[in-house]
């Protein structure tokens, strides 16, 4: 019987039987080896912990290099403003606020930006990671992943409302030399050179260099606190937000080792100024930032790997602010973070992966600069407004990604972090993604996150207006979200997400005893909303063309009042039309609702607006080596405004850029 079964089995296998032919010759072996050599050219490394957007429990938007080219983005901000739930606005000092899900603050400290997975919140004095990264050049970016919602269970501090992970081109992506240059309105110029190579001995190297310079939008500023009193002032005048930056990035690899990092020097003016007096061009902000990371993956067993890394982050600010026509204040500091992380990845089975890790870091602030005087070139030392400070922190985390069914993914994770200055915090994350009907998935997740108090909030001294508070606890957020992602027909993706976030222990200045204000954990706010997204990619002759739309309805309240300066709704409509394999055109409409004022602010609401951007892109020209693009922003020259704070209510609001042009050329060798 067994013999019969095996004969049957072989019968199924054997359809072709030119029996008893001669054994294969040496020539056949060579043919087979040639086949294997051809197959060897393509390596596909799929990390099981890298999840497909459709399968993850998090609300994620991915912007690819191709998308960035079509958008004609000048910097990271141009990319982010297309993401549902994210808005960009101008601040008085010159920085940009990244609003996420109806919540925005001056330093965007509730958003964690990462470069190739490395956190960039290097400014320990003021928190936030946008300081030198918000206007990051985009030519070297391969992909931007934006995860909305809390992620402290994985990434620790400050992954509070969103995580923006920027992935840059590596040696394999470059495979040669790439250069590009861009020129545009406001005397904007950008240059980039990249080189990458994979060597036969498993070594690889990628180097990127960027230079960017702009005179800024020169927005009209009608008044300041001096001019309204009839005193000498720069007002009426124009904003002086000049910006120039150098970026150098490196990614070096040999066998399982990798050394990577990025250095940035950024110099900027200011938009209005640090005080209620309009600055002239003598306000200067000077930032240096770098990180250096050495990492290695250790393969212990087939299913068990360990990722290790040590890193050193550096951030310095040396800023000279104009407080009055003949009064200047120079402030500076240096921050470092040095530490390491070990993460174990255990693939229990094809359907379950557990990761667990431990991280440690020492954070230090020193080299403080505080000077005051009437001559900006000869300022005199004054009492320091911040303190030299050190803190240590460690964290331990675990996450289980499990597919109990083919159409069901469950994620459960938690992280505990302990800081030497404010104690410990525990943050869980859980959820599921269930494809309940083919191409229709239901998502649900719950998670918490924290935002660590910044050094400035803990220990600000000698400032007559606001002082630090060493007793501060971290801000906390609890977020619940649910949504449906669907692919009703080929090429069409739609997603609807509802979120509800409760932010507690908000760190903000309140009335103080020794100073007018003092930082404290004070109050809470609720942010909830619905995000709707859809995109259709055409096929056939229209391959490469797409239309997409996202619409956000958001409602953020504090003490039952709608938050000021954030819109109730925002819409992005985009279309990309590929005429042929070379030419494509892009159009984008941003519609933003009006925004309310603070209760004490008597100005009318900031009106909403619609902006229309268009672009033309030519790819792979002149022997596949040249890409050219030309974009017009705010084509209809719409006059629109970002809200100025209540303290500057006498100037109205910040007028933003009118019609602007940007041309870009990219060469591959």
């Amino acid at each position, binding site marked *: 019987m067994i*013999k019969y079964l*095996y*004969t049957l*089995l*072989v019968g*199924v*296998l*054997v*359809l*072709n*039987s*030119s*029996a*008893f*032919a001669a*054994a*294969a*010759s*040496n020539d*056949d*072996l*060579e*043919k*087979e*080896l*040639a*086949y*294997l*050599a*051809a*197959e*060897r*050219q*393509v*390596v*596909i*490394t*799929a990390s099981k912990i890298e999840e497909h957007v459709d399968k993850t429990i998090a609300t994620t938007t991915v912007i690819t290099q191709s998308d960035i080219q079509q958008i004609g983005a000048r910097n990271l901000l141009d990319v982010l403003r297309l993401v549902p739930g994210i808005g960009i606005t101008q601040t008085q000092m010159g920085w940009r606020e990244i609003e996420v899900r109806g919540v925005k603050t001056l330093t965007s400290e509730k958003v964690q930006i990462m470069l190739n997975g490395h956190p960039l919140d290097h400014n320990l004095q003021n928190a936030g990671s946008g300081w030198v990264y918000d206007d990051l050049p985009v030519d070297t970016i391969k992909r931007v992943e934006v995860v909305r919602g809390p992620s402290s269970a994985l990434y620790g501090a400050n992954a509070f409302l969103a995580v923006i992970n920027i992935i840059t081109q590596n040696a394999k992506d470059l495979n040669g030399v790439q250069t590009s240059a861009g020129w545009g309105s406001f005397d904007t110029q950008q240059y980039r050179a990249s080189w990458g190579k994979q060597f036969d001995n498993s070594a690889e190297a990628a180097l990127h260099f960027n230079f960017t310079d702009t005179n800024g939008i020169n927005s009209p500023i009608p008044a300041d606190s001096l001019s309204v009193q009839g005193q000498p002032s720069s007002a009426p005048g124009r904003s002086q937000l000049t910006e120039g930056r150098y970026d150098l990035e490196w990614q070096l690899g040999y066998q399982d080792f990798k050394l990577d990092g990025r250095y940035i020097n950024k110099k900027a003016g200011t938009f209005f100024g640090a005080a209620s007096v309009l600055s002239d061009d003598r306000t200067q902000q000077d930032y240096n930032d770098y990180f250096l990371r050495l990492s290695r993956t250790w*393969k212990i067993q*087939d299913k068990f790997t360990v990722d290790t890394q040590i890193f050193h982050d550096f951030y310095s600010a040396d800023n000279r602010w104009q407080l009055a026509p003949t009064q200047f204040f120079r402030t500076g500091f240096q921050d470092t973070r040095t530490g390491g992380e070990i993460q174990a990845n255990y693939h229990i089975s*094809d359907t379950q992966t557990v990761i667990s890790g431990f991280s440690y870091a020492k954070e230090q602030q020193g080299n403080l600069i505080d000077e005051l005087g009437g001559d900006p070139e000869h300022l005199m030392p004054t009492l320091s407004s911040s303190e030299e400070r050190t803190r240590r922190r460690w964290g331990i985390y675990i996450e289980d990604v499990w597919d109990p069914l083919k159409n069901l993914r469950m994620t459960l994770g938690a992280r505990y972090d302990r800081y030497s200055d404010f104690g410990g915090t525990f943050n869980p994350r859980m959820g599921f993604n269930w494809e309940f009907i083919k*191409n229709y998935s239901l998502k649900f997740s719950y998670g918490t996150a924290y935002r660590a108090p910044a050094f400035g909030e803990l220990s600000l001294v000698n400032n007559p207006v606001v002082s630090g508070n060493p007793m501060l606890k971290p801000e906390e957020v609890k977020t619940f979200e649910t949504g449906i992602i669907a*692919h009703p027909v*080929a*090429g069409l993706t739609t997603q609807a997400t509802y979120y509800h976030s409760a932010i507690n222990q908000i760190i903000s200045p309140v009335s103080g005893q020794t100073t007018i204000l003092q930082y404290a954990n004070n109050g809470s706010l609720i942010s909830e909303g619905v995000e709707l997204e859809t995109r259709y*990619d055409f*096929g*056939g*002759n*229209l*391959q*490469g063309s797409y239309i997409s739309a996202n619409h956000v309805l958001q409602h953020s309240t504090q003490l039952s009042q709608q938050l000021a300066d954030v819109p109730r709704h925002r819409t992005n409509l985009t279309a990309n039309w*590929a005429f*042929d*394999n070379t030419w494509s055109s892009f159009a984008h409409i941003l519609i933003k609702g009006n925004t309310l004022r603070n209760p004490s602010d008597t100005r009318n609401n900031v009106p909403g607006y619609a902006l229309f951007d268009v672009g033309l892109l030519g790819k*792979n020209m002149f022997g*596949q080596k040249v890409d050219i693009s030309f974009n017009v922003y705010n084509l209809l020259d719409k006059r629109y405004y970002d809200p100025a704070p209540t303290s500057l209510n006498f100037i109205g609001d910040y007028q933003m850029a009118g019609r602007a042009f940007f041309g870009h050329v990219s060469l591959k060798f």
Partner: protein
Amino acid sequence: MKIMDFCKVLILLSVFWVSAGFALPGKVLIVNSDNTVFRYETIASEFKKVLQQNAYQWTEFNLNSHADAEAELKQLIQQENPVLIYCIGTKAYSLARNVASNKKLLFSAAINWRRLDIGEGTYGVANELSSAQEISLLRYFFPTIKTIGLLYNDKFSREYVETIKKEALALGINIINQPINDTQEISGALNELLPKIDMFWIISDPVVLSSKASVQQIFQAAQQQKKPVYAYSEVFIEQGAVLAISADLATIGRQSASLALMINEDKVPEGTVQNPAGSTVTLNKCALDALRFSFNQDALDSVNKIVECDK
């Protein structure tokens, strides 16, 4: 009412057009990783024969003949608007997946297909035979075998080796797998592996089998330690493999074509990856005798080719 009637006629016409569209055989784009590679070209040739018999149109695109294959392939897809892209080899599949992810893709001759990024509308014929069937046959031929060893590279063969281990365990055979990153590690890995095993299994791993020297190294070491070698292809019989169960290339081509016809008629569930339907079993009796390695004589009924020693 007139408007309603007009709408009804429109709907009926639309249904007719749609039905007519489905009834017509669509155009197939064949993307070949390298038409100078015997395996790829044999499969492509058989595939085209079946298409011809069924009055299908096709266009061929050989990656080795184009300097900027990605851009040219993208352009060709725009021009031709094929209903299906047949990708022969991993390179062809990876490229097609990049430039035409919204098209139906069918692949074959891709080593360890489980490592591929398989999306919606993807179908395939595996390069490897069903490991469960292979192990069943191995047990049938060699009932005393308890432990089998193999070398592999993690980047190319991890998923395939995991499948083999799982299937073997279910049939009472222990697989000892030794990963290597480079051919220089073969010697050391074999020294460590061979004493622990009853038989060595050569799988289609492109790092392990990177040159003739690597193949010779494996067979010399196995011979020194008197371990029989089982191989995935009969090309290794001449080197000294005692048994080979080879997937038949022509059948893979024909099987892919049959699958393509069924895909066009929406008769195949998305994500279907079939095992190769045809195979050849070659027994090297000469090598077995030299090793004095016994086998189940009843299993000879299952053999297509027997290699005896030259007299």
